[in-house]
């Protein structure tokens, strides 16, 4: 079971417009002990993020109306969500696209096609671990 220092389950928000992929990711994460909230598009994703305050967000980029970069920009602009690590999970992989994501403040930029759900969970853990270490350092 995946928990935080507070003892509650780690909450992951998946923003992905492809239902099948969303299902696979959430199932795998739940099995591994995460609490999962889902959103099917950018607008919903941002809404969920500000009301649920997840511990980490998996964010697709190509989304209808409000795309992933827009969501990321808004997340980083809103003090409530500013510190939530965002892992971009996208099929975009051109250099300038990765740079754009990182410039907007993403914690990692993962390419969907290259990674199995297992590897994605590992990446999520890696990001969380790194974050915890940094926070520990900061509080110490």
């Amino acid at each position, binding site marked *: 079971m995946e928990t935080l220092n507070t003892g509650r389950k780690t909450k992951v928000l998946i923003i992905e417009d492809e239902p099948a992929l969303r299902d696979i990711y959430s199932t795998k994460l739940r099995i591994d002990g995460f609490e999962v909230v889902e959103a099917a598009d*950018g*607008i919903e994703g941002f809404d969920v993020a500000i009301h649920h305050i997840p511990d980490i967000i998996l964010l697709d980029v*190509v989304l209808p109306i409000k795309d992933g*970069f827009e969501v990321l920009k808004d997340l980083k*602009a809103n003090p409530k969500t500013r510190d939530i690590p965002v892992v971009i999970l996208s099929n975009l992989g051109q250099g300038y696209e990765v740079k754009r994501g990182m410039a907007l403040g993403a914690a990692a930029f993962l390419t969907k096609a290259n990674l199995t759900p297992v590897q994605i969970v590992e990446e999520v853990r890696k990001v969380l671990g790194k974050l915890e270490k940094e926070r520990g350092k900061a509080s110490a």
Partner: protein
Amino acid sequence: MDVLSIIGTVFNEMLIAVISVIAFTLLVREYMARKSRFLVLFATAFAIHATAMVTLFFGHILGAYGHETAATTALKISPMLISLEGFFIILGSTDLLAGKRRGFFQALGVILALLGLAAVIFGPSEKVIVSGMTFLQFDASMLTVTLGTWLLSSIMLIVLAGRRMWNDGKEKRESSATDRILLWSGVLGALFVITAIASSAFGIKFLMPLNFIALLASIALLMVGAAAAEHPDPAIRKRPVTLYTRSLVFKAVALNALILWVLALALLAITSSYFVSSSVDSRHSNLRRDLHYFAKSYSSYSLSLLEETSRFAALPDVVKNLAAPSFDLESMPDIVSDFMQKRRGSRILRVIDTDGVITYSSYSPTEIGKRMLSSRVLEKALAGKKLAAVEKEETFGIWTVRAGVPVKRDDGTTVGVILDTDVETAFDFSDYSSISPIYAAGYGFVAENGEQVYTSGGAIDALMRSTLQKRLGIGKSTDFKTDTALYLAERVYATDGVPNGFFYIYLTNEMFDIEVFRIIAVVTVLVVLSVVFMTGILLFGMTVVLRPIRELRLAANRVGKEDRYDLRVGYKSPDELGQLAEAFNRMQSTIAERTTELKEALREQEDFLDHTTRELRTPLNIFRWTLELMRFGDTGRLNKEQLELLEQLHQTNERLVKMVQNLQDAIKIDQRKLALRIQDVAVEDVIDEVAGVMAVPSRKKGLALHWNRPKVPMPRAYADRQYVEKILANLVGNAVKYTPQNGHIEIDIEETNEASPGGKKGKYLKVTVEDNGMGIPKDQVDRTFSRFFRASNATGGEIEGTGLGLYLAKQVVELHGGQIWLESREGVGTTVSFTLSTEKPSSKPMVAKQA
């Protein structure tokens, strides 16, 4: 008489000389303006041509006045000059057209020129007189060598200009007009050489007019082609005639000069035939008169000889002595010997007795005792009658004037005869100036029996002698014309009235031709000089009269180029130009006023726009912040539909903000207030950013956006990063907007040495955005960068835009010292490129449009 052909030749030579001088003057003027070496070379060629023509002309004149050596020299110098001229045309055309192979052609030119000079100096030539004009005729091969440089220069013009036209054709360019003109000049030049050889060396006379026309046209074309070649004004390169048609003075003077020349030609044709006929008539009548006087003087000489002899015969001593058995003149008294001594050596005095036997001879004592052979004068004298006539002197076998007088006693019986002969003086024409070799081809005396007695310059044949004799049978004198000459003849009589023979003079037609030429040459020189003089006066007058036009043109040009609406033309006169100048000045005032008003109105409008956009910022920000509050859930949770509407509103608002920013930039640029913050910018990073922003929109549209980032870092550009981003965002945004689904967009960057193709040199970065979108219609490409431009295939459709983006991009790029340009084909795609300098600028701040 071949008056027209003489006028044709002389006038042509003068005309070509004058046109060569004009060509020389115009090319020198052109050279003064732009200092291209080939202009001087061609000008020199024309100067030489004019000299050659004048030399040729004076060669004819010298020939006509009998200065053989001078004429030959002049006639040799002329083709030498022509050879030299060809050499200068070769130099000029290689300089203009040949490029790298110049040296080869010029060396060939030198060789041909030397050969040509040698051919004239050492080659065989023959002096011929055609229609009274002296020419030097070379055989075909010598003439070809002499005209070798000309032929080579013509061939070179054809080949070199032709090669350039061929290359233009291969590269699908329109060939240059000057090349075409030079090519034709070469063709006509070659035609001139060929017809010259054919007509002069092979005597194909009907080619002469063609020869002249070819030369004239070749010179005229060469003049225009050379003067317009590489001219800085593209309008002149396109239409070389503009060089001359653009000047009103030139046109007016040219028209007048043309009329003068035509008049001169007509005048020459009319007056010279009049002068010619009167001169020939007077020459004829002078000769006729002289011949008549000569015949008369002959008669009076015969009479005086007879008179002298009679007085001698009447002396009492002579009579007494003759009656004695032997005649002894020496024993006679002084008076007789005085008489004898007074006689010249050419006189022979003989005393003959009644039996016809010589009893005394002043020529030789050996004649004494001999019988005098038959002589009409002797027979008459023996019969008691005096007579003087032309007779053959047997002792010398020559024809002489002889006087015979009977010596009579007081009772009237004849005791003997005195025969007095002058063997020399009778036929001497030398006192008569009109009968000189220049004017008469030959003259002489023919005895009654048809024997040619005395001749000078050339005898006449037996047929002509008998013809003249027959004609003289009708009258005392006759004029007789044949195909080749004019004959004048006058009958002379013995003192008893019996025909004795005739004097004749003849003139060949050639002499008449030369006379005609002399007259025409003089008239031509006068006419040409007066036409040139009048043209000069015209040119001067026209320049003075039309000076205000020049002033008006200069003023109008400056107004057009420099927007100087304060300029006024100072010419004041009630004439048309004065009115025009006044109208111009009035117009200027009106324009100046209107411009001020317009600028004022425009400034007010801009101020208003500036103010409005400023005012717009606050409400837009209020929108933005309010929307953010709602979007970020600070005003309570909204349902999905509300959130979607809110998102649309937010995106629209952001677009509006951007549009207002663009508008403000445009106003700043127009008011020259846009200040750039120049720093060194890694343009690749800016492209990264812009491509990142455009990534999702292009993905959503199914476009492949390739940004070919170089592996090695490019030099940094000196620019305002914010504006570079704006430029790029606009270009890539346009590409995404105007490229349909599944299209592709490429962004490239490279270093370059010029601000734009063929533009300012320097170190630059060139960014290119290429798409395979809808493109811009060909007729609109030029306007793409103008304010509010939107291509016709983009308006009215579903694609939005204000048309301000590219205008701003251009202004900003140029403000940076770079260039922006665009290639587009409708339905194929568009490529936009711009450059930014990588050289550190001077500290001067960059502000839009330096005033």
